[in-house]
Each structure stands twice: as structure tokens, then as C-alpha cells.
């Protein structure tokens, strides 16, 4: 036992310079070792390798001949002799000797591999394949045999076949680097650069990763986005985002959606208490009805304009991340506010009935008025949203502007208190005109002034067309303008 350990250490001592290709030193060390461990075959064979490397054929041959004589059952000396003949260029001799070796050791892995190797060198590929097949039969767990299987195809330059064989190598020996590296070389030789890189990376990411490229279902696993959103998709996006914003807003309070009713209910009650009960303005309480029929639509206007005017600027992060029309941002705000406003209108109607106003068919006209207000707010909101990024100071003026509109739209006073000569100017404010329509329908039980509404619609249409043109023009400038 001790002796074995000792000889192991001694072998290391001589093998070390071989690894550094210091053949002369190695040869000297093997010579020293031969004196002490002459019974070990490797001492002879390794020494012969050193001498072969040094070009000292004769010494190498002598050593090997001696080794073959001493160790009849060891094929290594035989194989090294073949290698020596090959190195000398004596190919015929090498072949003859290899055949002898194969006859003597027909089932030795190294010998069989070497024979196939020789066949490859001789371009006798079918013979090489046959020899390799026998080797793989006998040594099916031997990685080197399988690598040789693929190498035969490589040598043949049958790249497709080589790729298949390397795939088999990878399947059996996933940790074998050659299965990836050499396969990549085959793919490269075929001009498949991409596949070659995949193969190299597969060593890191695994076989399953590599296999996923060949699965046809991979393509169907992904969905391609359209080149540009069409109108329907854009509307869907605005709608879903507005709904989600409402959901998100509601989730921030513990009373959730109830606030949408509670909030207007509270402020209506405040107005009722102050004007209806405490001040008793307008005699029988008509003033409180007048006030609320104006205030409810105006509040909607104020909140919508306030929110949408800053929408594009607020959406600058997203605008620089995804390709999206800037119209998206104000429109979402407008939709979101419209959603919140609907229960408020229902409350207002409830309040009016509670106050003793009986509904008539004229109240149906409320719908077109609400829709028109929505259109008007969209045009104004989108216009301001577009303006604010270019002139950011404008944002500070918006609350004042809304305040100004509040006083110009006749929320708190009736139209007949305005001198005749100012009335045309008063009604040129579309919000004033709209509030007037609300009251015509709700309080006076009349049909609205359709021509007045027609003018607003016309104005909105012209404004809308102009706006969409402007939006198209500045669409690609906006991300940079807001990003600065």
C-alpha cells in the first residue's frame, strides 16, 4: 500500500514538467524513476512520450519495445508506438501496428477509439463509424466514445449530422463542454451564427432553454402588438384606465364607492342649510333649486378641467416609456370624472323630486345636455392639457380661470339680472349657455334651446378637429417637451 502511495507521488513528480511541456526535464525524471519503479508500465510509456516530443524517435521506440515485452496485457505501450509511427510520418507502419493492437485488444476502449481515429485520418469514415458504433455498444456510458461519434461527422464536414450527434452527446452528458462548443462550431460552419451563439449560451442556461427554441408553440406563446393602436383599441384603453383609476381612488378610502354619493350629498346639504333654511333666500326656496341645478354641472366642469389640464405633464413618465397618443392622458381624466359625476346627477334629480318638482318628459333632454357638456369639457380639457407642457406657468392660472368662469356662468344669479346689452356676451360663454339649458329643462319644464346647443356643438366640432390636428403635429415633440 505504502509502496503504491510512494509510486503515485513519484509519478506526479515526473508528470508535472510534462504538463509544462518541459520534455527534457520530464525525460530525465522518468529515467530516474525507471530504476526504482521499473515494474510500472506508465514509467516506460510516459518516458517514450517525452522522447517522442523531443524528436528522439529511436530512444522512444526502444523504451516502447521494452515496455511491450514486459507488460503484455497493457495496451498503452502499443498505442504509444502507433502514435510514434504517426509522428515519424510512417503512416503505413502505424496502420499495420494499430491493426495488430486491435487484434490483440479487441475490446479495449482506448484501442478501439484509436482505431477509429486512424480510420478518420485515412478519410475512411464509414469504417470509423463502424468502429465507433462498436465502441459505443460496449462503452455506452463513456463520454469520449460519444464525442468521437460526433467528431467523425465534424471531420467529414457533414455539419447537420454533426449537430444531431452533438445533440445526442448533450442529452447524455449535459456537463460535457464539447457538446456545446463543438456543436457551435458546426453551426457556425453552416453559417448559422445565431444558433451557434445559442449553443454556446446553452451551457449556462441549460438544455431546456435550448430546446425551447425548437418548440413551435413558442411563437404562439407570445402576442404581437399592432403597429399602431386603432381607434377601438384606444377607446378600450382609455375606458379601462378610467375604470381602474376610479377603482384605485375608491380603494384609498374605507367607505370606498360610497364617498361618490356622500361627498355631493354633503355639499348639497350645506347649500340647502345655508341658503334654503338659514337665509331663506328667494322666498319659497326656489333659489336653492336654482343654485344646485347650476352648481352640480359646474362642479363637474371645474373638477374635469382642473384634472385634465395637467394630465399630459403628469403623464410624462409613461409617455417616455411607451408609444402612446398624448390624448390618452386628458381623456382618461375626463372619463374618470364623468363616471364619478353620474351618481351626482341622480342625487340632484332625487333632491329636486324631494323638493317638490315633479318630473316631466322634458327631463329626458337632460341626456343630450350632459353629453354636450362632456364634449365641451373634452375639447377644453384636451386644449389646456396640450398648452400646459409648453407654457407651464399657465397651470397656476387654471384655478383662477375656473373661478372666473364660475362667476361668468350665472351659477349664483339669474339671467334676467344681466342688462339686455350684455346678454349676448353672457351667452357666448358656452358654460353659461349650458347651465341655462339645464335650468330650462329641470326648473321651467321646457325643451332646451336647441339652436343654442347647436352652436356649442359646432364650436366643439371645429375646436375638436383643430385640436386633433395639433395633437398629431406635436405628438412626437411632447415627450421631449415634458421630459425637460
Amino acid at each position, binding site marked *: 500500500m505504502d509502496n503504491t502511495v510512494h509510486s503515485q507521488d513519484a509519478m506526479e513528480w515526473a508528470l508535472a514538467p510534462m504538463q509544462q511541456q518541459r520534455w527534457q526535464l520530464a525525460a530525465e525524471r522518468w529515467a530516474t524513476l525507471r530504476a526504482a519503479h521499473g515494474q510500472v508500465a506508465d514509467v516506460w510509456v510516459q518516458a517514450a512520450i517525452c522522447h517522442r516530443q523531443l524528436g528522439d524517435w529511436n530512444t522512444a521506440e526502444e523504451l516502447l519495445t521494452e515496455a511491450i515485452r514486459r507488460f503484455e496485457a497493457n495496451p498503452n505501450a502499443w498505442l504509444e508506438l502507433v502514435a510514434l509511427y504517426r509522428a515519424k510520418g510512417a503512416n503505413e507502419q502505424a496502420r499495420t501496428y494499430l491493426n495488430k493492437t486491435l487484434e490483440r485488444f479487441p475490446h479495449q476502449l482506448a484501442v478501439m477509439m484509436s482505431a477509429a481515429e486512424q480510420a478518420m485520418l485515412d478519410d475512411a469514415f464509414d469504417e470509423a463509424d463502424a468502429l465507433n458504433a462498436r465502441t459505443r455498444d460496449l462503452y455506452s456510458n463513456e463520454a469520449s466514445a460519444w464525442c468521437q461519434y460526433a467528431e467523425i461527422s465534424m471531420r467529414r464536414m457533414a455539419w447537420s449530422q454533426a449537430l444531431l450527434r452533438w445533440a445526442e452527446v448533450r442529452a447524455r452528458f449535459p456537463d460535457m463542454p464539447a457538446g456545446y462548443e463543438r456543436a457551435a462550431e458546426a453551426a457556425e460552419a453552416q453559417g448559422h*451564427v*445565431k444558433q451557434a*451563439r*445559442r449553443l454556446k*449560451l446553452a451551457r449556462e*442556461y*441549460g438544455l431546456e*432553454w435550448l430546446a*425551447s*427554441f425548437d418548440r413551435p408553440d*413558442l*411563437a404562439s*406563446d*407570445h*402576442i*404581437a*402588438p*399592432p*403597429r399602431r*393602436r386603432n381607434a377601438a*383599441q384606444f377607446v*378600450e*384603453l382609455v375606458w*379601462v*384606465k378610467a375604470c*381602474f*383609476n376610479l*377603482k*384605485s*381612488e375608491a*380603494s*384609498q378610502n374605507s367607505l370606498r364607492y360610497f364617498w361618490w354619493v356622500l361627498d355631493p350629498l354633503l355639499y348639497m346639504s350645506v347649500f340647502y342649510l345655508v341658503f334654503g333654511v338659514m337665509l331663506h333666500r328667494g322666498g319659497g326656496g326656489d333659489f336653492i333649486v336654482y343654485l344646485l341645478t347650476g352648481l352640480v354641472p359646474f362642479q363637474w366642469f371645474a373638477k374635469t378641467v382642473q384634472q385634465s389640464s395637467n394630465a399630459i405633464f403628469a403623464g410624462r413618465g*409613461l*409617455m*417616455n*416609456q*411607451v*408609444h*402612446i397618443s398624448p390624448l390618452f392622458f386628458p381623456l382618461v381624466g375626463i372619463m374618470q370624472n364623468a363616471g364619478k359625476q353620474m351618481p351626482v346627477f341622480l342625487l340632484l334629480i332625487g333632491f329636486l323630486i324631494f323638493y317638490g318638482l315633479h318630473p316631466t318628459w322634458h327631463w329626458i333632454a337632460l341626456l343630450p345636455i350632459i353629453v354636450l357638456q362632456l364634449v365641451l369639457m373634452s375639447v377644453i380639457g384636451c386644449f389646456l392639457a396640450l398648452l400646459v407642457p409648453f407654457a407651464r406657468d399657465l397651470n397656476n392660472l387654471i384655478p383662477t380661470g375656473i373661478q372666473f368662469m364660475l362667476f361668468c356662468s350665472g351659477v349664483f344669479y339669474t339671467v334676467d339680472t344681466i342688462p339686455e346689452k350684455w346678454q349676448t356676451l353672457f351667452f357666448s360663454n358656452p358654460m353659461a349657455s349650458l347651465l341655462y339649458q339645464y335650468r330650462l329643462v329641470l326648473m321651467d319644464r321646457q325643451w332646451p334651446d336647441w339652436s343654442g346647443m347647436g352652436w356649442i356643438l359646432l364650436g366643439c366640432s371645429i375646436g375638436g378637429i383643430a385640436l386633433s390636428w395639433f395633437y398629431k403635429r406635436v405628438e*412626437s*415633440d411632447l*415627450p*421631449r417637451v415634458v421630459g*425637460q
Partner: protein
Amino acid sequence: MNGAPAGSEVIISLKDVGVRYRQQGGRFKKPGYYQAFEGLNLDIYRGETLGIIGRNGAGKSTLLRLIAGIIKPDTGRFINHGVTVSLLSLAAGFDADLSGVDNAIISGMLLGYRRQQIVARLNDIREFSELGSFMDQPVKTYSSGMRSRLGFAVAMYMTPDVLLLDEILSVGDADFKKKAEAEMMKKLHSDQTVLLVSHSEEQVNRVCDRKIELTSSSLT
């Protein structure tokens, strides 16, 4: 490394393109300009993986936004020969008060999907992100790793003709990072056209067919 794949089709061309940014000037002061890049000529071929390297401020991200169609050049011509282009951005448009499912839907829609396309993918997203029942919880309850896992799972199903990547995104904890990176690598090595912006030349060499380098004002 260089040299276009012979015979393949040009899908996007940039001809003598320049982009500049206006620097803080104010209303009454003449503004200065910062030139991100100029005189840039570049053809992008179908199926290639093109790496763009350059130092900070060389205009890499600007170039991606230009190719994505988010911004337009100040000079020169940018021609898209009819392909879809998307910048892969994680967690685009996330709302912390909404559930993972809702965020997946809206983020996916912002990236270009139809609503039903994402709804059909929700199970895959749930599985890939490994979020399980957390998908129904508000995103504000997520850790930052969970949030990026969700963002990654949504973005992963994107397959535009040209995918733009600002660095290889690897997110989450060690295990998910590996999975995410493998998935990114899959995209980089499929037949999809990919543009990868990176500060790491080594990474670009490893994964790209071709590379260009942006220097502060021109292209070499």
C-alpha cells in the same frame, strides 16, 4: 462582429439623424442646446441582434426612444419600413392601489395588447411571476422584488417585430433573476430583431451579432 448580414432585409433606417435637447433657457433667455447625437447613419436588418454601446450621456436611451417612435429626430430622416417596435419597459403605468391582476391588464394594454389578450395570459403571468394569490392583492403590499417580477412577467409576452432593450433586465431574487435572464436570452437569440443598449461591451460581444458604439456626438 461588424458587417451586416448579407442579403437580409433592412427594416429600419436612420439617415444622417440628429437629436438635440433644449437646455433650460426660460422664456426670456435664449435657450442652449445639448446635442445627444448627430449625423447618425444606421440600418437595422430583420432578425439581427444589434448591440449599442456607449458611455453615459452618449445618447443610447435617446436612440432607443427615437427608434420606438416616441420622439422624432431634429435633423435627418428616420424610416420605419412597416414594422412594430416596442421598448421593453417594466411596470409601465403601474398603480400601487390596484391588484396585481389589474396592473397586469393595464400595463399590458399600455404596451400594446388588447384587454382580452392579457386576460387570456393571466394564468401564465401568475405562474411565471410566482406571485400566486398575491396577484389579487394591491401592488402596494408587494416587495420591490415581487413588483418587478410582475412587471417582467407582463413584458415577457411582448413580441413586436423589433424589441428594444435598455440593458438586459434581470430582476428579483437570485432564483428569479436566473429565470428572467434565461428568458431575456431566449428573446435575444430567437429570430426576433432585438436592439440591446448596454454599457457593458463584454455583454454585447457575448450576445449580439453586430455592435455599434455611440460617442458623444457621432458614430464610429
